[in-house]
């Protein structure tokens, strides 16, 4: 008798073969080979189980059990602009690539606000463009280190990706939106977004990576994002995960930092019944700095897992990490933050903090900040807390006439404020304000 895992593998194998046939004409030979290799690796590894230390608190069995179909450009009806409108951040209305149910939509995308020289394209276009080699290099490199099955699975179904190149010395004013939207038109779809960002030296850009949904379909987003920063490049990166509450979301973000570069990541996790975000920031050169901050806010039936690695490989780099969690109802969150300081990484300055607010007695968080230091001249600090709303603060607000609910919401908002305040894009901030207060049924428009 076949085991559950083997059965799943063959299910993706047949889907894979069908997928390969479907896109045979469109893709270069190297990509086809790469996907084939990735499929083999995926099958050899299998989905992770809770026996693995890294997956101890996150059980992906529901993903294994469900029968997802790879995204297909034949499926469903094309999305209407009205459908995606609410998901477009106005600041990025003319600098956006849109993917619907895992498939690139040229009609819904717009590149008007991008300065000359900046390349923003879907993979099919980029494969044949003048930077095809750069893209190929990035994708192949990623495949070489895709440790986990999810990354391999993403590569196996590689097709709808976004390629962004900021040439050296160019600063892009408008934030660049990569929108992955899921509609109920295509349930049970497996989307495999791949994002490759190359920010050459002395360039600057802001990227918004957004996952949103219209409707409450069950689907699976399995994303891989690779960002490389050249010397002195500055990249501000927002990831907003607002998938449907029944969706599954697994993503990995990897940033490689050049000399003197600055990478500023803010992740907002609101959606999905099960989500896992893996983050790796690699200091490849000296003198770089990163901020890796985030807010996860989950309620009954949600599980959100963040695993991060800040890898100090070279000297004189600074990292700041501030993650906050708000857990309501019967929800669960996992935060695992590793800061690794290699022997040569002298003068490292690393700060990490994870604070959690439990709004219900049924919520649970497992937080594990980890510092591993092999250099002797470093400044490192880390801490984690799990707490509830303070009784004295609640009484103080009540004594001024605030209803119990509003008092709770206001204190919850106060807890999140540090992260909200960091967001420099008005419409993301507004979305978050509303998410915090709506979830908690209150209004606040100051």
């Amino acid at each position, binding site marked *: 008798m076949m085991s559950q895992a083997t059965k799943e593998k063959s299910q993706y194998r047949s889907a894979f073969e069908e997928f390969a046939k479907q896109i045979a004409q469109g893709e270069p030979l190297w990509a086809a080979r790469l996907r084939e290799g990735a499929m083999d690796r995926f099958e050899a590894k299998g989905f992770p189980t809770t026996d693995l230390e890294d997956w101890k608190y996150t059980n992906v069995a529901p993903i294994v059990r469900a029968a997802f179909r790879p995204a297909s450009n034949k499926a469903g009806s094309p999305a209407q602009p009205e459908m995606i409108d609410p998901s477009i951040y106005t600041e990025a209305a003319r600098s956006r690539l849109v993917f619907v149910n895992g498939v690139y939509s040229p009609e819904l995308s717009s590149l008007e606000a991008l300065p000359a020289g900046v390349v923003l394209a879907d993979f099919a276009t980029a494969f044949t463009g003048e930077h095809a080699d750069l893209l190929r290099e990035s994708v192949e490199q990623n495949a070489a280190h895709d440790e986990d099955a999810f990354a391999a699975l993403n590569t196996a179904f590689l097709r709808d990706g976004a390629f962004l190149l900021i040439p050296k010395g160019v600063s892009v004013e408008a934030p660049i939106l990569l929108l992955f939207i899921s509609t109920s038109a295509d349930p049970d779809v497996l989307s495999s977004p791949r994002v490759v960002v190359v920010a050459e030296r002395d360039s600057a850009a802001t990227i918004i990576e957004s996952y949103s949904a219209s409707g409450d379909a069950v689907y699976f987003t399995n994303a891989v994002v690779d960002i490389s920063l050249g010397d002195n490049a500055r990249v501000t990166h927002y990831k907003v995960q607002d998938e449907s509450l029944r969706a599954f979301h697994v993503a990995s973000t990897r940033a490689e930092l050049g000399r003197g570069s600055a990478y500023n990541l803010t992740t907002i996790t609101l959606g999905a019944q099960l989500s896992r975000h893996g983050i790796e920031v690699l200091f490849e050169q000296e003198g770089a700095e990163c901020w890796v901050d985030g807010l996860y806010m989950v309620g009954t039936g949600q599980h959100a897992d963040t695993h991060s690695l800040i890898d100090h490989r070279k000297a004189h780099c600074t990292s700041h990490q501030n993650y906050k969690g708000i857990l309501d109802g019967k929800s669960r969150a996992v935060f695992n933050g590793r800061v690794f300081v290699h022997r040569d990484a002298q003068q490292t300055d690393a700060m990490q903090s994870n604070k959690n607010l439990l709004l219900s007695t049924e919520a649970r968080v497992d937080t594990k900040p980890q510092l591993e230091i092999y250099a002797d001249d470093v400044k490192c600090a880390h801490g984690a807390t799990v707490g509830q709303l303070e*009784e*004295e*603060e609640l*009484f*103080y*607000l*009540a*004594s*001024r*006439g*605030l*209803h*119990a609910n*509003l*008092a709770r919401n*206001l*204190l919850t*908002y*106060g*807890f*999140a*404020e*540090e992260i909200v305040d960091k967001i420099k894009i008005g419409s993301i901030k507004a979305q978050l304000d509303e998410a915090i207060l709506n979830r908690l049924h209150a209004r*606040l*428009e*100051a």
Partner: protein
Amino acid sequence: MLEIRDLHATVEGKEILRGISLTVNKGEVHAIMGPNGSGKSTLAKILAGHPAYEVTKGEVLFEGRNLLELAPDERAREGIFLAFQYPVEVPGVSNAQFMRLAYNEKRKHHEEEELDPLEFKDLLAERAKVVEMDAGLMSRSVNEGFSGGEKKRNEILQMAVLEPKLAVLDETDSGLDIDALRIVSDGVNQLRTPENAIVLVTHYQRLLNYIVPDFVHVLYKGRIVRSGGKELALELEAKGYDWIKDEVGNQQSAISA
């Protein structure tokens, strides 16, 4: 306006208030004095509805209604205000936003139009004059990192915004420098009307030079052991509490004898 009858209260099983009776009419100012630990703040917090204190006996009527059955937020909307001895810091919530929400909660309760942030800003600026509050403190988180004096001033600013019927000021004078004491006292006097009432908890006669009380009460070991006019405060300032403690001691031994 306020009528406290034979109030007994405990915290964590310990009896703190042991039979307090006090009547406050509108237009009056009452000062409550007494040694440390005698139960002054406990009484103030019970009036505001702090959940840690349990009333075991007696009753409190506010405008003829049973105050004790109202939740703290309902009491506030009905017009009770407590200026805290130790104001609480609320990180991440701006002072102006907090006051606007509180103000609007009260407006809604009285079926009045709410103010939007711009309208409220004007109102706040106007009320801030009452205590000469620095505008910079409005955009900061509530009380967070405020100096001791700034926190006290912020309490009276909230009073100015909320215009309570009954304000209980718990040692609002402590922590204020000499000028600030005058400014804040002036502010409180401006807020006095024939329709509202103020209960001042204080250790110092000095405050009572500025805000002149109609009655002074001495609280000791959970009871009001003496009441009088404003001269009582002067007497306490001159003689301390020992003579009152002695009197109480004698009375108690007389009772038990």
